[in-house]
Structure formats: structure tokens, C-alpha cells
């Protein structure tokens, strides 16, 4: 086992970590602002990946081009999901909100199963074929582009949160809903927007994932669990933490799989997850 | 010479750089009603939290009838027969009034495992009924705690606090937020409990009329320190005490 092998795994880890980071941010922002653990988060990812695939298969659109379209669609889906379903579950007991999002997850997962059949789909022959090579290392173009887009999306989101009025309102609501309300923030509207953001994150991730990964109905779960681990590591309620968590989880997963035992790559992630919860439930940067 | 029921010696509690309690030494004798006053932020509730073990004091000791109970877990302190109420009522909303009272029995001598199949004994139920009657809320016995009015909840908490024949009862603003008629009832019941059962009370209160009426002796707290103690009238009119309420922290 030479250092090149390890470094390659490290690079892969960082690349995929970017994806986990964006997914985790989507999960974390909804958790932090609205207190809802969205168990369907991974399945929205799955759905967006399917949309990307459908646009490719039937409209010949490369995922890079259909990306804005998919994101727009999913923001709308997010608004609808909040307005007609999730709104009811704000402040509901945890069991209830978990079961609510879980049942949506079931409907989506098995709905996809029925419509698309369990076949693994793959997008071939697109703009991002091929690999970049530098020295002994290689990165697939698709993963590299994905990584860049993840970074771009995250930067966009952070700027939005930091500099815009709505972004500040979102952060205020996350810190203290009542104070935000008394300052004139329309909390319902903030929730709507936050939910949309959550889904937008997943839409970006899902679309880009479809450029290098199989699309199949059950793909949501693994990403969801990795997102949970990332959020736990980085701290619930902290979006910066979620990014950190995502990258670390990506590295741990790839390195663990490369160095120890491929089938166990997720075990390391879960062990870290549970250790974090046991000893540092606030995560490394968390607020709860 | 009455024996000391609750004795606090040099109790100190810091939060980072902030000294919330600074070498607090107070005592309450058996069957006394002692008042604790002070402006907001003076450390009254922090003191209660340190006594019940919810917060661990940095220095000092808490003695209950001579026994050192400093820093024990809250449930253990309560089991040593210290009852405590909170500023905002803390009734179990989905338990009935009767259950809210029964749940405050003396848990020390209870077999935890056997409680899985045992129900409350007839004596326990009788005692709870008597206490609810004593507080005048018997007819609410089967109502869920969450549906009682605020004042009724305060009475319920008072009844519950007496369930285990406590050595000391810590009341945190027992009349706060309660309408005037009920305030008088609460005062009346506290005094009645003290007279009939010999219950020892340490009461935090903001309502001067109430605490002047009830206390046999008073402590005044400001910025984490006891600034005076003694006869209620004397304490209340003490210039330092008045200053602490009007002036800065």
C-alpha cells in the first residue's frame, strides 16, 4: 500500500465529500430552522437524479444543462411539500414529524420502484466523459465538475445567508423563532423558503450525482445516512459544520474503504456518527 | 433552641467569569417559614438549583437536618425529602391532578422494579385525596393537569410538594402570575401547612405583600450575596435592600 494509493483515496474522499457536504447542508438548514428531521431528504435526491436522467434520455439534455431546470422544479416541489404537508408538522412531537417525512420517503421510494423498476440507470456519453490525470492521480471529469459545482452552490448559499435580508431572517429564525417573529419576520414564509433551499441543495447534488453514479430507487437511503453522519459531526444547526462534516465523512468513507475493508466503508462513518452523538452531541461546531 | 433544618454554608457558584453566588450562608430552622427576596438576577433561583443538585456548586455545602446533600443528583436530593416548585408551573400536562400528586410520594423506600406492576396503595391515595382537599381542588382530581388554570396548578404543585412529608419545601415564586383571590388562598394554605403539618418553607417571592405576610424571617440577596437578614420589616426597609432593587445590579 503506497502513499499514492492513499492519496488517491483522499482525493476521492474530498471530491465525494463535497457532495455529502451540500446534501448535509440541506438537511441541516431545515433541521436548524424548522426543527424537522427530513427522512425523505435522500429520496428527493433520488427523484432529482431521476429527473436528470429523464431529461437526458428523452430530451437529450446533458445534466449540466438541465441542472438549473431541475433545481427550479425542485424548489417548486419544496414549496408545495411545505405548504400542503409539512406545515402541519411544525412543532409536532418528534415521532409524528419523523413518521410524516418517513411516510413521504416510502411513497417516493416505492413509487419510483413501481414507475422506474429497480434497474440501475446510468447516463453515458455526456459532456463530462473522461478523466483528468495529474501524475499518478486521476479524477473523473464528472466528479471534478461535480465538486466545483458543489463548491459554487455552497458559496452561493452562504452568501445568500450572510448578505441578503432573507438570509439574515433565516438565520434569525434558526436562533430564536419568537424573537424573529417579534422583529417582524414572517416565519411561515421563512419556513417555506428554507424548505425550498433544502430541496434545492438536494436537486443540485442529485443532478450532478447522476453524471457518475447509478440512479436507482433505493439510492436515497445511503446518502441520507451519510448526510446524518455529516451533520452530527459538524454539529446540528450549523451549516458550516455540515460542510466540514461532509468533507470529513467523505474522506473517512473513502480512506476507510481503501485502507481497511471496502465493505466496511460505511461502518467507519456510522461509528464516528455514534461516537459523536455519545460524546459530543453538539458536534464540533453545533448549536444544539 | 430549634434545630437547623436546612443549612447552606459558603455556597459559591460561578458561570465562567460570572460569580452567581458568592459564599452564601443561610439556615432555616424546623417549622420556620423563611423568605428570600432580591432583584432579578440576584441568584435566588440559582441558589435553589444548587440546593436541589440541578447545578453543582463550586464551593460550599448544603446540609439537610445535618446530612450533607451537596451536589447530589436532583432525584436523590428530592428523595432526601426536599420538595421544590418552579417559577413557572411544571405540572405534568397529561397526568391527572390525582396522578400529579401521587407521583410525588416518597420514592426512597419504593422498590423501583416492583413499581412495574404495583399500583399506589390505598393509604397513598387517601393521603393524596386529603391533600387535594386541603388545597381545595378535590373536584379536579380526574382532570388532566394541563387543563387546570394557572392558579389551580400552583395549588396542585403545593399539594404535591407535601406528599412525601418533606423536611423542607422550596417554593419559587408561588404566587407569581396568579390572580389576587387565589394569591390569598395560596398564602393561606402555605401557612396552614406550616401550622398543621409543621412544614418548613423557604420561599422566593417578588410580591412584597405576600412575603411580608408569610415570613417569620427573611434573607435579602443581591448580586449573589446575602446583604441582610432577619425580621421581615427590618429587612424590607433596609436601605441597601431598597438600593439593590432600584439601583444597578
Amino acid at each position: 500500500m503506497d502513499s499514492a494509493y492513499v492519496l488517491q483515496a483522499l482525493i476521492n474522499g474530498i471530491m465525494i465529500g463535497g457532495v455529502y457536504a451540500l446534501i448535509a447542508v440541506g438537511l441541516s438548514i431545515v433541521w436548524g430552522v424548522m426543527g424537522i428531521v427530513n427522512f425523505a431528504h435522500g429520496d428527493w435526491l433520488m427523484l432529482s437524479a431521476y429527473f436528470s436522467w429523464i431529461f437526458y434520455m428523452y430530451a437529450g439534455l446533458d445534466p449540466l444543462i438541465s441542472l438549473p431546470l431541475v433545481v427550479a422544479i425542485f424548489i417548486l416541489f419544496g414549496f408545495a411539500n411545505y405548504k400542503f404537508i409539512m406545515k402541519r408538522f411544525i412543532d409536532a412531537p418528534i415521532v409524528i414529524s419523523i413518521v410524516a417525512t418517513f411516510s413521504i420517503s416510502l411513497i417516493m421510494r416505492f413509487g419510483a420502484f413501481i414507475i422506474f423498476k429497480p434497474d440501475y440507470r446510468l447516463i453515458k456519453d455526456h459532456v463530462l466523459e473522461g478523466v483528468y490525470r495529474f501524475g499518478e492521480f486521476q479524477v473523473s471529469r464528472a466528479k471534478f465538475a461535480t465538486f466545483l459545482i458543489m463548491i459554487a452552490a455552497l458559496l452561493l448559499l452562504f452568501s445568500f445567508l450572510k448578505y441578503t435580508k432573507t438570509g439574515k431572517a433565516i438565520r434569525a429564525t434558526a436562533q430564536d423563532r419568537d424573537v424573529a417573529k417579534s422583529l417582524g419576520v414572517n416565519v411561515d414564509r421563512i419556513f417555506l423558503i428554507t424548505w425550498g433551499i433544502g430541496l434545492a441543495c438536494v436537486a443540485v447534488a442529485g443532478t450532478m450525482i447522476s453524471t457518475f453514479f447509478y440512479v436507482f430507487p433505493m439510492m436515497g437511503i445511503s446518502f441520507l445516512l451519510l448526510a446524518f453522519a455529516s451533520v452530527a459531526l459538524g454539529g446540528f444547526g450549523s451549516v458550516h459544520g455540515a460542510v466540514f462534516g461532509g468533507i470529513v465523512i467523505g474522506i473517512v468513507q473513502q480512506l476507510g474503504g481503501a485502507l481497511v475493508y471496502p465493505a466496511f466503508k460505511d461502518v467507519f462513518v456510522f461509528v464516528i456518527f455514534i461516537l459523536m452523538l455519545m460524546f459530543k452531541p453538539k458536534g464540533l461546531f453545533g448549536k444544539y | 433552641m430549634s434545630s437547623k433544618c436546612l443549612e447552606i454554608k459558603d455556597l459559591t457558584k460561578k458561570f465562567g467569569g460570572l460569580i452567581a453566588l458568592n459564599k452564601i450562608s443561610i439556615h432555616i430552622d424546623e417549622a420556620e417559614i423563611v423568605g428570600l427576596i432580591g432583584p432579578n438576577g440576584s441568584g435566588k433561583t440559582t441558589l435553589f438549583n444548587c440546593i436541589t443538585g440541578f447545578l453543582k456548586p463550586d464551593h460550599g455545602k448544603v446540609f439537610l437536618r445535618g446530612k450533607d446533600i451537596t451536589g447530589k443528583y436532583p432525584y436523590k436530593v428530592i428523595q432526601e425529602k426536599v420538595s421544590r416548585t418552579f417559577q413557572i408551573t411544571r405540572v405534568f400536562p397529561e397526568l391527572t391532578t390525582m396522578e400529579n400528586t401521587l407521583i410525588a410520594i416518597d420514592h426512597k423506600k419504593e422498590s423501583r422494579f416492583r413499581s412495574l406492576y404495583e399500583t399506589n396503595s390505598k393509604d397513598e391515595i387517601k393521603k393524596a385525596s386529603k391533600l387535594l382537599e386541603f388545597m381545595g381542588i378535590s373536584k379536579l382530581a380526574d382532570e388532566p393537569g394541563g387543563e387546570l388554570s394557572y392558579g389551580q396548578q400552583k395549588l396542585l404543585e403545593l399539594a404535591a410538594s407535601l406528599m412525601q412529608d418533606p423536611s423542607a419545601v422550596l417554593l419559587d415564586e408561588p404566587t407569581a402570575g396568579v390572580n389576587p383571590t387565589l394569591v390569598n388562598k395560596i398564602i393561606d394554605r402555605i401557612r396552614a401547612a406550616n401550622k398543621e403539618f409543621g412544614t418548613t418553607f423557604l420561599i422566593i417571592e417578588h410580591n412584597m405583600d405576600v412575603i411580608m405576610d408569610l415570613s417569620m424571617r427573611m434573607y435579602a440577596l443581591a448580586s449573589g450575596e446575602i446583604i441582610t437578614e432577619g425580621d421581615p420589616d427590618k429587612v424590607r426597609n433596609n436601605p441597601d435592600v431598597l438600593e439593590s432593587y432600584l439601583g444597578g445590579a
Partner: protein
Amino acid sequence: MKIGIDFFKEDRKKIWILLPLLALLVVPYIVGDEPYLLHVFIIVFVYIALGQSWNLVSGYAGQLCFATHIFFTYGAYTSLMLLLRIDLTPWVGLFVGMPISAGIAYLLGSRLFHLKGRYFAVATIAFAEIMRLVFLNWRFVGAAYGLSVPLKGPSLYYVIWTSKVPYFYIFLALAIISTLIVYVVDRSKAGMYFRSIKQDENGAQHKGIDTSYFKLLAFMISAAMAAAVGTFYAQYVLYIDPRTLMDLLISAKIVMIVLFGSIGTVYGPVLGAAILIPLGEYMRIKLGGGSQGWDYVLYGLIILLIVYYRPQGVYIMIKNQIESIRRRTKNVLKMSRN
């Protein structure tokens, strides 16, 4: 000191329970050895027992656990391993699996119970997934290949029969026993303590209740109950493997069934399982055949509807309906008298 089984004191209500029970006892004779129908009953009983196990720790004590299926699996694997390795009858293996499960619950609970609601729930999911991955790769317990029950039947010692009828009665007994346990706890002091912990744990501590002890107690009993079901389930399905048994969907199904029925009540899980399991089977036959997608989609829809409109569950919904009808008729009678 009293034992809270005053079952026969409220005579009239108990008819609703005794009659169906008696009916159940004779079902195999009425139905004949109709394997599929008996199978549906058995699965209902399994989910009643697992549901009650979950109900105890999550419904009553309020600790949201998503790892019930793991304790269920521990029971199955322990007794089957003992059977395969030292030819030990599952009747004894049962009493090895239960304490092991309870022990692991103790270890897990003592490390995780300081976590609040969502976090504890998510931690149990992580635990469940770790276990699944471990078992999938652990050669000692057969890894992904699983374990098969030796076909040494029909035999009481080996708990294996060709007919489903004896299994019917075993699982019926498990369903009854688990419901009885919840019944006793429900009316006991501990039941009240569990509920107080669920509503306000800190408040309960300030009433002198050792909340850590009670949470662990609930968790351990729940784990032992699930393990017991697992032992017999292995003997019923004759083959166990981590992929089928340690699927998070099983815990999800348990949660949904109990929530549908009414969480935190004695009869909620019974009602939930009795309605949803046959419904699921019916939907699977009618709409799916091979691809078992439809039953889960409809499950999801039903649960979403219940949680949206009647989160308190079907049992409480029905109870409230009967209450309000009774009150209305009382008022009508009162008015007609005046």
C-alpha cells in the same frame, strides 16, 4: 402493595377483549390448515408483540427507538446459533437471547440516554446500521449467507412443525403476553413514571424519580420482548439473514403500525397490526403480485393521512368518538326528561 390486575372488575368492557380472544383460539379449526391465512394471522401477532415492545420504550417512556428490529434479530440469532452449535432447544435459547438483548440495550441506553428526542432516535438508527453491516460481514454468524434452521421436525424440542397451526398458537401467546405486560405496566406506578418522563423528564427528576433507571428498565424489557419474538420467528421462517431481518424498514413498519393504532395505549398496537397487516397483504396481492411496491406506497399514504389528521391514532380516535356519542345521548336524554 397491590398488583394491578383488576381485570375483571370492569366487567362489561372486557367482553370486547375476551370474545375476540376466544374467537382467535378456534381460528385454526374454523379456517382449516389454510397456510396463507394462518400466515397472515401469525404476522399480525408478530407485529403486535414487536409493537408492544416498541410501545413500552417509545410510547410510554418516550425514548424514540428505531432499533427494535435489531433486538428482534439478536433473539433470532442467539437461539439459532445455540441450536446449530450445541443442539440446544430454542425453548432454552429463548432465555439466553433475552438477557443478551437486555444487556446490549443496557449498554446502548446508558451511553445514549442523555440525548434528547431526535438525537436519540437518530443514534439508534446509526446503531442499527452498524449492526447490520457487522452481521453482514461476520463469518461466525454466517455473514451474508445467513443461517438455516435444521429441519428436524415436527418436534416440540426443536420448535419446528410442518403445519402452521402450532406456530399460530405460539405467536398468539406472544402477542397476548406482550399486551398483558403493557397492560400491567400501564396501570402501575412505573407506567405513571414512564409517562411523566415522556412529558417532562427533568420535572420527573424533581419529583424524586430516578429517570435513568426507569428509562433503562423500559429499554431493557423492550429489548428482551423483541428478542423473544425473534427466537420463535427464526423457527417459523426457517432461514434468517442480516439483509432481511436487520432492514430498517422493519422498525419503520413497527413504528407506523403502533402510531396508526395509537401510541402509548395498551390496545393501540393490537388495533394497528390487526388493521394494517392484513390490509398490506391484501394490497400486495391485489396490486402487486411480484413487485411489492404498491403496498408500501399505500402504507405510506395511510400513515401520512393518519399523522396529518388524527395523530393520536385510531384507538384514541374511536374512544373519543364513543365518548362524545355517549355524552350527546346523555344530554339528549337529559333534555327530553326536562
